[in-house]
């Protein structure tokens, strides 16, 4: 259960931090505000997942301790969300692929037999719904936009595609969660994801990559180099000044 909650909370934490890196740097003011708001939602959701993880673990660690005092190999986030921001199109494509998965995942978790998980999911899914609407809209506008925006969105899709499969890969922990009625197998979401993805990509005139090779490891603690760099920035204060408070 603890590991399962880390997978949810670490994924929203890492994406929330990545998205927050855009604050003050976005191409237009409205997008800057939108990205900051999305990052805020992600961090808020993280508080709930990691807060519950700390409770379940029972070792006295709260959400902050879990976020700021663990090393890269202890993180259980999806590899997709630790990918660097690169250009704006790349950031949006990562967000879109994530939102599509996240929305399905949370919708399923609303039916969890664990009331605490269902409660958090019900709170988060409303936000995820809103994020997905925005992501879809922008993917269609930029994919079906100018020659340059189309080319950038297609390049982003191809670069991020190897990280899509991990969202739907099952392991022993997933089987345990599924048997306990806490969370359905991630693979069970794939058909719904594919259907929604294909619809949006068609409207965006983007081509779905054919090679479904998937990079795995994030959910069991094997990360790309980028996560370590991100954590070095994110955790600096608590590492340099342990227990510092506002």
């Amino acid at each position, binding site marked *: 259960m603890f590991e399962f909650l880390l997978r949810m909370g670490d994924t929203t934490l890492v994406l929330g931090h990545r998205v927050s890196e855009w604050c003050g740097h976005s191409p237009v003011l409205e997008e800057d505000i939108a990205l900051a*708001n999305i990052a805020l939602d992600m961090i808020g959701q993280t508080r709930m997942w990691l807060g519950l993880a700390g409770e379940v673990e029972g070792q006295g660690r709260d959400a902050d301790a879990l976020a700021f005092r663990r090393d890269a190999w202890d993180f259980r986030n999806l590899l997709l969300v630790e990918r660097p921001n690169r250009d704006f199109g790349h950031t949006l494509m990562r967000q879109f692929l994530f939102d599509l998965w996240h929305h399905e995942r949370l919708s399923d978790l609303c039916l969890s037999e664990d009331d605490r998980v269902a409660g958090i999911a019900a709170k988060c899914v409303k936000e995820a719904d809103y994020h997905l609407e925005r992501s879809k809209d922008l993917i269609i506008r930029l994919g079906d936009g100018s020659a340059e925006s189309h080319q950038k969105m297609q390049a982003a899709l191809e670069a991020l595609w190897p990280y899509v499969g991990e969202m739907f890969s099952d392991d022993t922990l997933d089987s345990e969660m599924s048997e306990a009625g806490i969370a359905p197998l991630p693979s069970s979401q794939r058909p719904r994801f594919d259907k929604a993805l294909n619809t949006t990509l068609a409207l965006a005139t983007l081509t779905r990559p054919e090679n479904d090779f998937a990079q795995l490891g994030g959910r069991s603690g094997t990360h790309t180099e980028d996560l370590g760099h991100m954590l070095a920035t994110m955790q600096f204060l608590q590492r340099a000044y342990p227990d510092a408070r506002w």
Partner: protein
Amino acid sequence: MVTEAQIWAWLGEVPDPEIPVLSLVELGVIRQVDVGQGVLVKITPTYSGCPATSVIKLDIEAKLRENGVENPRLETQISPPWTTDWIKPEAHEKLRAYGIAPPIAGQPHCPLCNSSNTTLISPFGSTPCKSHYKCGDCLEPFDAFKCH
């Protein structure tokens, strides 16, 4: 012995930190008040990451202490999740007068000229709970409460 009704009345005087024309009660974030074993107030956040949540707790605690309530307990309750349906109907008019279009299903009306000829500029506005619109008639930009 303080009554639940008294606590509700005090909380009705605490303004929301982001939208001060509304009280926390009108915003629908106070879910429960209990005076059984000391004072307990259950609060639900509007959005999970809303930075106003911690200020809200601080304001509630200050208000209760100011009225002689010792050590009030404040708990966060996330389920059922907050919805704009919990914003009291009388609060809609206050929001409009303050320049924020109240949460309604469908196209928001301009809070200044009441025109329904409005366009979404950005799904995210100045706070997590609002989106940004423009009026096609009086041309003023405005914030609209997201309806959900």
